């Protein structure tokens, strides 16, 4: 029987507090953070000195030598996460029909570290010193291209760059593709890595990064101590497929259905019009055919900026009522991962549904006045059938996604 629901059957998390989905989830439920002093360069002279870094990531375990040299660490993380997601789903694209499997990824900053190295060579030694792989390693589409080549996926392709909202936008785009007759399966998700000196300086130009050097004090969203966010690297990838196809191939697990989504954009800076986040949340619920009472947990964007936190808490309270729904931000253990951030939140939401438990927001004290939300600060067992994930991208992007147990 035809069942075109879009369901997620494989997860691959590459997170600062855990490499691999189960390692990430165990650390997250334990409240273990992956935020620490930057290790890839000496951050002593920079305003931000801590970041979420994926520990013990040996890219060569996931990436063939030939591909290693032509790719940035951001793509290594994507290749690793995608391989984990495919293995988790028990899916081998080689056995599929020619064009039925698509690849859609989110990227926010491309191959920053690779790019810095090549621009450095150009300006220190001259144009002949720029390597042959700059043309394919730095650009934002590199990961989608390498993923399709690595696994022989020749269907539709896509790359979305809506900063932190991108991780949800690609899932919505994947659902769109699955509604067409030519696509049955999509490899999707996002990752980012901009923890090189130039990448960090670019990030800090927004004024939104935390300047705290104590990893436990650096990222405290929704509290009176909120003073910026910590950046991080990594993300999560997924196998999404039509429910009937998953059933037909005997998929080993079905984490949840992508039920609702909406994206909005904020009015221009200085406009008297209200922010559009609330409308994104309401739109996602309407798209899902649900009411606010159906939602068991909200995974927050958690910007870590007092005003942005108030806007988000206000939107959640306006839709659900004050303190009416558990809200959590496990990204306090990883930092904000840009294109990988909302992807990782989606992974956490699906695992919450699987295990009926809400992961904590760590390192936060009392919730600030003006943030009327039930912030989950200790791992909380709860019946979780439906989760809402909220993400905002720098500049005004808002996205909200609803996932539900099968």
């Amino acid at each position, binding site marked *: 029987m035809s069942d075109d629901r879009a369901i997620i059957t494989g997860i691959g998390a590459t997170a600062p507090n855990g490499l691999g989905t189960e390692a990430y989830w165990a650390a997250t439920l334990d409240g273990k953070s992956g935020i620490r002093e930057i290790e890839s*360069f*000496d951050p002593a*002279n920079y305003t931000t000195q801590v970041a979420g870094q994926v520990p013990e990531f040996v890219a060569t375990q996931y990436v063939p030598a030939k591909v290693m040299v032509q790719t940035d660490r951001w793509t290594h993380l994507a290749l690793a996460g995608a391989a984990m997601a495919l293995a988790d789903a028990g899916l081998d694209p080689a056995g599929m029909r*020619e*064009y039925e499997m698509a690849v859609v990824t989110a*990227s926010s900053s491309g191959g920053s570290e690779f790019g810095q190295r*090549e*621009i*450095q060579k*150009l*300006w*220190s030694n*001259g*144009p002949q010193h*720029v390597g042959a792989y*700059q*043309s*394919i390693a730095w*650009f*934002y*589409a*590199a990961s*989608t*291209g390498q993923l*399709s*080549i690595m696994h022989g*996926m*020749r*269907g539709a*392709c*896509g790359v*979305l*760059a*809506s*900063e932190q909202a991108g991780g949800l936008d690609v899932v919505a*785009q994947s659902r*769109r593709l699955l509604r067409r007759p*030519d696509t049955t399966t999509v490899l999707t998700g996002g990752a980012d890595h*901009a923890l090189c*000196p*130039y*990448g960090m*300086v*670019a*990030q*800090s*130009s927004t004024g939104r990064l935390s300047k705290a050097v104590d990893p436990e004090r650096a990222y405290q969203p929704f509290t009176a101590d909120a003073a910026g966010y910590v950046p991080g690297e990594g993300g999560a990838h997924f196998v999404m497929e039509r429910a009937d196809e998953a059933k037909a191939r005997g998929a080993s697990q079905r984490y949840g259905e992508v039920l609702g989504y909406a*994206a*909005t*954009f904020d*009015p*221009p800076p200085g*406009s008297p*019009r209200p922010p559009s986040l609330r*409308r994104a949340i309401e739109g996602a619920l309407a798209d899902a055919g649900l009411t606010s009472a159906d939602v068991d947990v909200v995974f927050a964007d958690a910007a870590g900026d007092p005003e942005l936190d108030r806007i988000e808490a206000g939107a959640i309270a306006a839709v659900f009522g004050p303190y009416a729904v558990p809200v959590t931000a496990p990204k306090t253990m990883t930092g904000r991962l*840009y294109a990988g951030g909302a992807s990782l939140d989606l992974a956490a939401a699906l695992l919450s549904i699987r295990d009926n438990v809400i992961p904590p927001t760590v390192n936060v004290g009392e919730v600030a006045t003006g943030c009327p939300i039930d912030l989950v600060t200790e791992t909380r067992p709860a019946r979780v059938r439906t989760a809402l994930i909220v993400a905002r991208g*720098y*500049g*005004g*992007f808002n996205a909200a996604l609803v996932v539900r147990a099968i």
Partner: protein
Amino acid sequence: MSKAVVTGIGVVAPGGIGTRAFWDLLSSGRTATRAITHFDTTGFRSRIGAEVDFDPADSGLTHQETRRMDRAAQFAAVCTDEAIADSGLDFAGIDPGRIGVSIGSAVGCTVSLEREYVVLSDTGKNWLVDETYQVPHLYSYMAPSSLGCEVAWRVGAEGPVAVVSTGCTSGLDAVGHAVGLIEEGTADIVLAGATDAPISPITVACFDAIKATSPNNEDPEHALRPFDRRRNGFVLGEGAAIFVLESAEHARRRGVRGYVEIGGFATRSNAFHMTGLKPDGRELSEAIAVAMDRAHANPEDIDYVNAHGSGTKQNDRHETAAFKRALGERAHQVPVSSIKSMIGHSLGAIGSLEIAACALALQNQVVPPTANLEEPDPECDLDYVPKVARERELETILTVGSGFGGFQSAMVLSKPAGEIHV
């Protein structure tokens, strides 16, 4: 489901600012490729480009906008203004939540990203760049999402905003993404298109390194020779094209027919090589077949094919094979041309510039030519409309793109039904 129609066009391209200058160049068969003036090209292999003569102030940008925006964003802003004016839409009367944005770009804001790097690294001396020289909008140069923000702010869009960055197919894919938003009913109007400004040392050097660009430095006007047996690479270009894309229903209600209806769109990956193409054109052919199927078009319906025609040895062979595979006998009957021969290859932007060219071709019932095609390659044996534009009755057009990563895209555009848009 409502179809998407183009009801406004804005163009910034080599050879002139604005849609009129753009069409004048294309229909005349002149080329805008020349020696690069943006920077000193001493030591580079390819020292030619198709540059836009662009003054932000002359194009209506304020000092603050000029300071804040990268060149690619400036192009997008100017195109947005022209497209809005051309559409005749009064945006003040439209619910902002029903307006979306979808902007494509391959390399985003690299001109500014490189310029600032040179300062922060003290001309490449210091890997640990000096944060004290950081400019306030630096992050917007690293994250191409800023291009979507600029367009959204300009038009007051509060619906979905996307930046599509699939390399050299971005310009087709961003418009394809916008079509999806309109067809599913998420937005009534989408500002859709693409922009790129890649003529900076790092991008010129990276194409030098793989010999993708033409080294015809002595004869820049004739350097890009698609389908010619002497072709030796593309010439880097820059520019933007942005459209007001509107649901046919919304346009009809205000008595506007639009330039073109976008009937079908599809993408495929070759999963073969990041830069290499298999000669058989199999995946591009598949993208064409699916796009035609969605547009309910048969090969006999296609009146003109706007080719990718980048002028590299492998591309022109690859896509000729793809046209034959997808269109059969029709491939030998239909005119095929590459406007890159005149305005260069502006990476992510070119797909949207080519859609603009298709819309104007339909409006004028003229096929733009392939400039510089003098000695046909025996392996490229279709009708490529050499050198001179051709009058022809046009109803339905196919446009395609092919890019790094193995991405292949195809779109079918046709004359909209209903009253004529002036």
